[in-house]
């Protein structure tokens, strides 16, 4: 079984490759990259004018299964992933039940295998039921296939519990991922605290609610020597703290979401509940700092924090609607449009943040087109213009803040292990 992806611009930051070449896949693995490769007997994919990159990796996805299958399933989330060019996704543990033990971890892996679309890597909980009290069985979850631990959405408030979690995770070679939010300081908050929250009369969450936990985690990381990964970083202050910690040589990394790169809290003004997520959309100053963090290497990965919610729930009053937006199927378009076209960040850097950047953080296979690697490949049209229509999403949910946006950058095809798992059916307007 051979596939020849011919004539595309191959960009693989893991090998510093950026050249127009052919990519030959054989038996599910990358066979070679070169000119006029022998496609004899191969299925030919004409990638002329397109970019061929390692399959994208998303460190932060909510698949909602088990427990909330009406929002998303492992299968529908996987389909959304590959439609967005993601071949590997990390499933956050805040399901029902919480992924705090090996049997839930195995359930997720089995379901993903059954779906057979994308590679799904479970993230285990830090504490039992993510209650922030007792440690979850991290070692067993790791053995079952968990790649990191996090109490995403229900941050560990007790610093002593967090310290123990870090020490224990270190013993077992697990990265600790933290959703940094002081729940007291942000109590009742639904949007960023600032001019917009004041204008709209909505309760704000101040930047310090995130930054105080980033600061705490950095200190604990230093104390415990564990690898800490800050999820969905959202304020200028957090970026600066991570920048300084990295300079000091701490084993810390962070990710940013496309929506925090593209939007500010000004988007909340119409009370569209699809602008409600945690952390909230911040100020323009914060947004610029995130873009600078992407540019200078402080930020290591783009992760979507894909958080599907049913339309019925998002039709609630703004302060009662659930936090979260879907992001898998708009990530590339938003990144190309905002980072490349509006901020002048090279496409190679964007691809790095979607491939080898995240792969290294959780020690995942993939993120590379190195010879012999599994042929997880994403082919996209960097100039393809399209209009976001949530009705066309493969995800079960429609809660996107980008509905109606004109984006550049469109996924054309996605391969997992050499097998085509997604092919664009509509040609963009441009």
């Amino acid at each position, binding site marked *: 079984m051979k596939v020849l992806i011919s004539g595309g611009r191959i960009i693989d930051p893991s090998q510093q490759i950026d050249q127009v070449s052919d990519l030959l896949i054989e038996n599910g693995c990358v066979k070679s990259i070169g000119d006029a490769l022998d496609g004899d007997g191969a299925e030919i994919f004409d990638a002329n004018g397109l970019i061929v990159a390692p399959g994208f990796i998303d460190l932060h996805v909510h698949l909602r299964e088990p427990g909330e299958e009406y929002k998303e399933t492992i299968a529908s989330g996987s389909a959304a992933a590959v439609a967005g060019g993601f071949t590997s996704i990390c499933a956050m543990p805040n399901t029902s039940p919480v992924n705090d033990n090996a049997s839930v971890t195995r359930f997720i892996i089995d379901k993903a295998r059954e779906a057979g679309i994308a590679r799904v890597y479970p993230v285990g909980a830090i504490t039992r039921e993510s209650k922030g009290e007792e440690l979850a069985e991290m070692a067993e979850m790791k053995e079952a296939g968990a790649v990191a631990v996090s109490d995403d959405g229900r941050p560990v408030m007790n610093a002593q519990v967090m310290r123990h979690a870090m020490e224990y995770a270190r013993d077992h070679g697990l990265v600790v991922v933290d959703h940094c939010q002081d729940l007291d300081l942000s109590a009742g908050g639904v949007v960023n*605290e*600032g*001019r917009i*929250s*004041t*204008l*709209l*009369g*909505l309760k*704000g969450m*101040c930047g310090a609610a995130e930054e105080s936990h980033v600061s705490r985690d950095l200190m604990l990381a230093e104390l415990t020597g564990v690898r800490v990964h800050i999820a969905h970083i959202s304020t200028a202050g957090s970026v600066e703290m991570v920048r300084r910690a990295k300079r000091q040589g701490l084993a810390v990394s962070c990710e940013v979401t496309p929506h925090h790169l593209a939007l500010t809290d000004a988007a909340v003004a*119409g*009370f569209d509940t699809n602008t409600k997520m945690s952390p909230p959309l911040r100020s323009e100053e914060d947004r610029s700092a995130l873009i600078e963090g992407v540019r200078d290497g402080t930020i290591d990965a783009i992760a979507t924090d894909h958080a599907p919610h049913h339309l*019925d729930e998002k*039709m*609630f*009053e*703004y*302060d*009662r609607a659930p936090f979260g937006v879907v992001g898998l199927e708009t990530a590339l378009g938003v990144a190309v449009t905002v980072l490349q076209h509006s901020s002048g960040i090279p496409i190679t850097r964007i691809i790095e943040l979607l491939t080898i950047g995240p792969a290294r953080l959780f020690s995942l296979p993939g993120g590379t087109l190195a010879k012999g690697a599994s042929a997880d490949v994403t082919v996209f049209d960097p100039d393809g213009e399209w209009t976001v229509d949530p009705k066309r999403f493969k995800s079960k949910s429609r809660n996107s803040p980008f509905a109606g946006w004109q984006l550049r950058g469109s996924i054309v095809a996605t391969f997992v292990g050499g097998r085509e798992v997604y092919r664009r059916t509509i040609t963009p307007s441009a």
Partner: protein
Amino acid sequence: MPFTRKDLLGIRELSVEEITTILDTAGSFKEVSARAIKKVPALRGKTVINLFFEASTRTRTSFEIAAKRLSADAVNISASTSSVTKGESLIDTAQNLQAMAPDAIVIRHPSPGVPHQLSKMVNASIINGGDGAHEHPTQALLDAFTIREHKGRINGLQVAIVGDIMHSRVARSNVHLLTKLGAHVRIAGPRTLLPVGYEGLIENSEGSLTVCEHIDGAIAGSDVVMMLRIQRERMTDAFFPSLKEYSIQYGLTLRRLALAAGDCIVMHPGPINRGIEISSEVVDSARSLILDQVTNGVAVRMAILFLLIGAEGS
């Protein structure tokens, strides 16, 4: 000028001309309430639903009377008697109301933005009767009407707004309205109850907005002092230590009022806490226009109903 809006969602989006139109129309309706037979046929055959998700006596009654004096049929629905407590969602409530073909829905809701969400779901005119800490446009309009009635103008006046600024939709709507009409608004209250970025509330206004460090600085030389109600539950949320301390530090007494201009008027959106944010002596003094505000509320709400649903078909 003609008033072409479908809804009255907030003051922020209104132009100076629209505000003036409402105030002028209210002026012509005020006389109706002084007649022996307090009724005109302007909205005969129209239906107004008062949908209140929060307790309210004054505002709901005011809207009901306003509708009835215009000969509209007014129906009151409060959350405790509605299906909302049975778990019906906003959209279903809206669709059911819509199915009864009301011409206007007055809504009060504890969540900011509900009138905006509702306005996209129904054809009836939506009137914001107070949405969380966001806006209370009819209150600001009746306040402006009352000020104009007593001062003859709003432009150039010094207006102090004092108290729980953070949770006050009345303060927000008044800041928008008064500064649009050229007043200079000074805000004061405990720092814990002053939301960040409050100075940034106004855009392109003729007037100005200043956040004062101390209540006395806000009151000094004011033409109008507007006190806000302080709620007991703020104390348990650690916003201030005690009602006693609050009343000493932030309450309006005759002594403090002496700092204001000689002909300063005192206002309060009600309900008042006598002896806490405002002393009884001030409430009962000739300076106090608190009851005039209530009277004018009916005229202003008549004007709003008339402008929104009276023009066409009548």
